Every structure is written in structure tokens, then in C-alpha cells.
């Protein structure tokens, strides 16, 4: 780009320092640092302000992730237990320094009793029972925050998909917040799914109100009855009616399977990829709209490949962690 900056030798290499800071951050936080390692770490910190600042910066950023996670369970006690990130503290200056920072930014904060975070990893599936008798079933890669108090029950779906079976209580309304939208229970079973660009809510039983609550998105509201499926993004909302068969297909993950009913190949692949580390890729646009029919376990990548090869007559090649599907 500019010929100006090329000729300016910079005094220090921020990239290298940041890499060192990250290495120390991970070593210190999460493996057993020997006394010698501990000393080296302190020397490194003492060596230059740039080292300390780079280290603080990573510490600060890492601590921010607490907002997603710290509420889920109490922080493990500070003990000599060698396992666990930041469970391991040593009696050294550096340890005290980090401890003090963590106290200042809330690492050691205990959760408020009524707020909990639940999550599943890739391919995970978990049912949680709330103290009010309601149930929430989390699908793959899902994180949600539950906050219960005397006057209301509120859940925020931060990512993924969940099925709600709500015990109705008019004195304690149950609401689910997702991407600036809210589902208000009027005695219901419903499914909420959050994707990057859109939100989908399917009402299975009972009634619920769906509305936007974020001023920055298009305002809309609708009362849903069984079979209604709402798809909303920041700009629009559509409600359509689905057959109970289609709805039960959408809920099949609760039984650990995916049901495809003349589903376009590209869509089926996207669906299966939500659950598995090994990803399928449709590498040929001409076959994207081929439809498939059948039931596959959520972890059934190999079964799916078998269907693609033997039933659809397609080619499947493995490249790294991906399977490329083509004609």
C-alpha cells in the first residue's frame, strides 16, 4: 500500500508479543505450571510494559465470556485441584495479580440463584426440568438463559433450538426472548429455533403470542394457534400453517432422528451438519434440489453417505473433515 510505512522499523513486534501472551495465558490458566515455569512467566511479565498490557488485554477479553457462562454454575472453588481452567492458583505474585484482576472483573462472582445458563455442544441433546414444572429440551449447539422469579419466568435463547413445554401460570407469565422477538406463553408447547439471520417458532399445542420487542426491528405481533409456524427476521415476519406430520418431522430430533420428506438435498445436508463435526458439502449445484425421503439418526453421517451413494447414485469424496457430494 503506502511506501511511507515500509521504511519505518517498528520498535517491537506486537504480533509476537501477543502470541507469547496467549501461550502464557493458556499455560498458566490451564496446565500445571512448574515453579520454574512460574518464574519464567513472572520474568516475562516484568520484562516490558508491552508484555503486561498484551496479557491484560487477553485476560479482559476472556473474562467477558463470563457473561455467557458464569451464571450457569458456581465457579469451582479455588483449590489445589489440578484440573479445570483457572481452578489452579499458586502462591506467587503473578497468581495474586491475576486473582485480583479476576476479582475486579467478576470471575469469582457467584451466580444469582434464579438465573441459570444451559447449553449443549455440537450434536448434544438435553432436557431440563424447571422448578415450575415446565420442561425445555435443548437441541444441538444450543445455549439459553433461564431466569425465574416470583412474578415472571423468562428464557433467552442465545443460540440453537429448543422445545418448550410450559406449565401455564397466568400470575407468572412465561416468555422466550430470541433475536429481539418474544414468544409469550398462553399455555403451550412450542419450538423455537435461532439461526444467524432468522428466527423460527412452531406452535404445537395451546396458544402463544409472538411479538417483536426490539425497537431496531420491524414491529409485529401475532397470536399463534397449533400448527402455526412463524419465520421472522429483522425486517419481516410470515406465519404459515403446517400439517401435524410436518411439525412432528420438525420435532424428530427429540427422538434423535431427522425425518426428511421430499427435502431438497442441500437443506437435508444443512440439517445434518448442525449435529456433526464431519460436514457434508453439496459440491454440485445441479443436484442441490434433488429431494430425499427417509429417516436418519442425527449422528448418521455415514448412513446419509450410504443413501447418497447407493440410492441417489451420487459420488461422495472425503476431503479433510468434509465429505463432498457430487454427481
Amino acid at each position: 500500500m503506502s511506501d511511507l510505512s515500509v521504511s519505518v522499523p517498528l520498535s517491537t513486534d506486537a504480533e509476537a508479543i501477543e502470541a507469547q501472551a496467549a501461550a502464557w495465558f493458556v499455560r498458566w490458566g490451564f496446565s500445571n505450571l512448574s515453579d520454574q515455569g512460574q518464574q519464567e512467566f513472572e520474568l516475562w511479565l516484568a520484562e516490558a510494559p508491552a508484555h503486561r498490557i498484551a496479557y491484560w488485554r487477553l485476560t479482559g477479553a476472556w473474562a467477558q465470556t463470563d457473561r455467557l457462562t458464569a451464571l450457569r454454575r458456581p465457579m469451582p472453588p479455588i483449590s489445589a485441584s489440578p484440573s479445570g481452567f483457572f481452578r489452579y492458583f499458586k502462591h506467587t505474585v503473578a497468581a495474586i495479580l491475576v486473582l485480583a484482576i479476576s476479582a475486579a472483573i467478576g470471575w469469582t462472582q457467584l451466580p444469582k440463584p434464579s438465573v441459570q445458563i444451559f447449553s449443549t455442544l455440537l450434536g448434544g441433546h438435553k432436557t431440563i426440568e424447571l422448578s415450575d414444572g415446565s420442561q425445555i429440551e435443548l437441541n444441538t449447539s444450543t445455549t439459553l438463559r433461564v431466569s425465574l422469579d416470583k412474578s415472571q419466568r423468562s428464557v433467552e435463547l442465545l443460540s440453537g433450538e429448543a422445545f418448550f413445554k410450559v406449565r401455564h401460570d397466568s400470575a407468572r407469565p412465561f416468555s422466550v426472548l430470541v433475536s429481539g422477538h418474544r414468544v409469550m406463553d398462553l399455555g403451550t408447547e412450542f419450538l423455537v429455533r435461532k439461526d444467524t439471520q432468522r428466527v423460527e417458532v412452531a406452535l404445537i399445542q395451546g396458544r402463544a403470542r409472538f411479538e417483536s420487542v426490539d425497537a431496531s426491528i420491524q414491529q409485529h405481533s401475532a397470536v399463534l394457534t397449533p400448527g402455526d409456524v412463524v419465520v421472522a427476521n429483522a425486517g419481516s415476519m410470515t406465519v404459515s400453517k403446517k400439517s401435524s406430520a410436518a411439525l412432528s418431522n420438525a420435532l424428530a430430533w427429540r427422538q434423535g432422528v431427522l425425518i426428511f420428506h421430499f427435502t431438497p438435498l442441500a437443506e437435508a445436508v444443512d440439517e445434518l451438519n448442525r449435529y456433526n463435526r464431519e460436514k457434508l458439502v453439496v459440491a454440485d449445484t445441479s443436484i442441490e434440489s434433488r429431494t430425499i425421503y427417509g429417516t436418519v439418526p442425527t449422528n448418521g453421517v455415514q448412513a446419509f453417505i450410504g443413501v447418497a451413494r447407493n440410492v441417489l447414485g451420487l459420488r461422495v469424496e472425503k476431503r479433510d473433515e468434509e465429505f463432498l457430494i457430487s454427481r
Partner: protein
Amino acid sequence: MTDLELSQWFIREVFPLEASLMQFLHRNWRNESDLNDLRQDVYVRLYESARNELPDPVKPFLFAVARNLIVDRIRKTQVVPIDAVSDIDTLDVASESSSPERNVIARDELRRLQSAIDRLPPRCREAVILARIECLSGREIATRLGIHEPAVSRLLERGVRSLAEMLYGQPPDPRAK
């Protein structure tokens, strides 16, 4: 000021301004590969002077430091293309004084955080989540992911660096969910 106080001050007051600082540096220094070095030098200068006294308010001071640093760098070079410094003298630090990033409400921060985590490369995200949400040790994460411990360290190192970059260095993405 002790380092302990300075560390907290940096985390609370300085790093949250980083997105604005990076935009400023980006506008006034054309070689992108230098930006992180410049940022580091700005922080070190800020650190040196904050050791004596914490500047208050931070923001105008931070930008004054950044501006001086750029002017110094330009002086040290023999050849200065005119357009390299197009707005160095008209730097409108005043307009930087409101700090939207400090006013964002908690929900937006949470969204931003989620989007930062979502944007991590998949393996890296898994390692970070296991370390952070599940509070697993290096060995446990290694077992869970079926890789060796050193590989877990690399993933976590990359994770924490990317998080710092996304949470501090980049302006909030208005479309982030």
C-alpha cells in the same frame, strides 16, 4: 499507580475504546500490517504516563497519544507521501468523544459476545466452550476432542486472541445476532 491498579484500569477503561482507536489508526496509517504494532505502542505510551497519573477522561488523551505517535512516525521517515497524512491535522478527536461502545445495553453486549463466539473457527470454539462453560482442564478437553494436549493449547491460544480481536478491536456489528 501499581501494575495491579493499571491492569484493572486498562481492562475497564482502555480496551473498550480499542475499536475506535483502531478505526482512527486505520484512517491515518495506510499500512495495515503495522496497525497492531501501532496499537501496542499507543498502549505502552499510555501506560507510561498513566503510571504517574491516570488521565481523566481517557478518550481524548488516548487519541492525543495516538496522534502524536503517528506524527512522530511520519517525521522519522524521509519520504512522506501527501495522501498518507490526509487528515492528520484535521483529526476530529472531539467527534470521537461520545463513546457509543460504552453505552450499549447489556443485551447487545451479550449478542456481540455470542456473535464473537460463533465466529470462532469450529474446533477453536469447541475448545473455548469446553474450557469456559464446562470448566474442563486441558487434558479433559483433549480427551473430549480426541486430540493431544498441545493441540488444545494452540486452539485456546487462538481462541483467546480472536476473542480479544473481536470484542475489543472490531466495531460492533449491527447485524450481529
